[in-house]
């Protein structure tokens, strides 16, 4: 896939790869590459930015830190882990990618990801689209009311909010309440018909967490803790994540 020759400085070693190896379980096996190429041949991101998983790993091993740390390819690998699945040595290339993303200065990270991460911290809803507790409650009740009034057999349909002691705490991607609320209804109907004891929460209901994608571990954890607390505060036994 390479279109140009990369000069490697003799004797140069990777400080970045070693740093990442110290963070990953078993060092992510990053030194075990046999260069077989199974990762790259089954990776849909192969060819983007003149890069592929094997090349990225080899460049890390050769100490080409500047090149890998500045390659936008880190944002084009989806960290789907198929390369690990295919790899005979189980090398954690996505783990390497995650740490490259983390290394990007915040101001240079893709704005769509970074701003969604920041926005989720504005409200206890954790909504990356900025939906407030009031917006959420209004939409859910409004849609449920319409179904009760217009759909035969669902006169008793409930979309419970903050129901203490419910078995299931269900969360929801912000896209539904914000842009296509009717898409929530089929799920409610299924839960209704099977007699599930479930609830939404006014806090911590948003399923998404973009801080994971920019590898902002502190903010990611903060969001997870807000969500987990919302589940615990209602005494729910099972946290159902729809995403």
């Amino acid at each position: 896939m390479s279109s140009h020759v990369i000069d490697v400085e003799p004797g140069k070693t990777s400080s970045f790869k070693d740093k990442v190896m110290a963070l990953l379980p078993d060092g992510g096996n990053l030194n075990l590459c046999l260069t077989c190429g199974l990762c790259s041949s089954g990776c849909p991101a192969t060819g983007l930015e003149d890069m592929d998983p094997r090349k990225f790993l080899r460049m890390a091993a050769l100490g080409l830190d500047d090149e890998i740390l500045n390659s936008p390819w880190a944002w084009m690998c989806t960290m789907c882990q198929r390369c690990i699945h295919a790899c005979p040595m189980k090398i954690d290339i996505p783990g390497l990618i995650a740490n490259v993303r983390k290394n990007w200065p915040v101001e240079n990270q893709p704005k769509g990801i970074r701003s969604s991460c920041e926005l989720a911290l504005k409200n206890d809803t954790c909504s990356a689209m900025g939906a407030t507790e009031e917006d959420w409650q209004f939409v859910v009740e409004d849609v449920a009311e319409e179904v009760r009034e217009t759909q035969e057999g669902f006169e008793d349909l409930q979309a419970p909010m903050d129901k203490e002691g419910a078995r299931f705490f269900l969360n929801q991607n912000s896209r539904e309440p914000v842009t296509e609320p009717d898409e929530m209804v089929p799920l409610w109907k299924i839960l209704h018909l099977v007699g599930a004891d479930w609830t939404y929460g006014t806090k911590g209901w948003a399923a998404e967490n973009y801080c994971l994608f920019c590898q902002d571990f502190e903010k990611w954890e903060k969001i997870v803790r807000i969500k987990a607390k919302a589940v615990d505060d209602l005494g729910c036994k099972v946290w159902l994540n729809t995403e």
Partner: protein
Amino acid sequence: MKFTVQDPCQLVRKSLGDPIAEDLRFVVKSVVGEENLIDMQPNRSNNYCCGGGGGFLQSGFPEARRYYGRRKLDQILETGAPYCITPCHNCHSQIHDLSEHYEAGYHSVHLWTLICLSMGILGENEREYLGPDLAELGL
């Protein structure tokens, strides 16, 4: 009417593995009929990512994202199914966008839509992602 199903990486390979992929197929077959599910190749834990994960949908590289998605698009088209069931939000958005962008003609649907359709309880406003062949069914 044939259907294929996307195994979400997050649900299958990255967390619950092949057993949940089998559960998914149990539900899908119950809904659409056993003979109407056509699997993509490869599938289950060996499935290809659609290109919607890892924040790719929001990262501002639409051309790269759709180049990535071409592999998934080809796998879907290879099944010949006019519907791809996408039980993950990112997969749904990406696979829907791929069909629109490449004018591939297949439909991308949530699993819950088909469950309710098969039970005869899918409301009029809950059919955004169904094609004209199923849009009026059971109303």
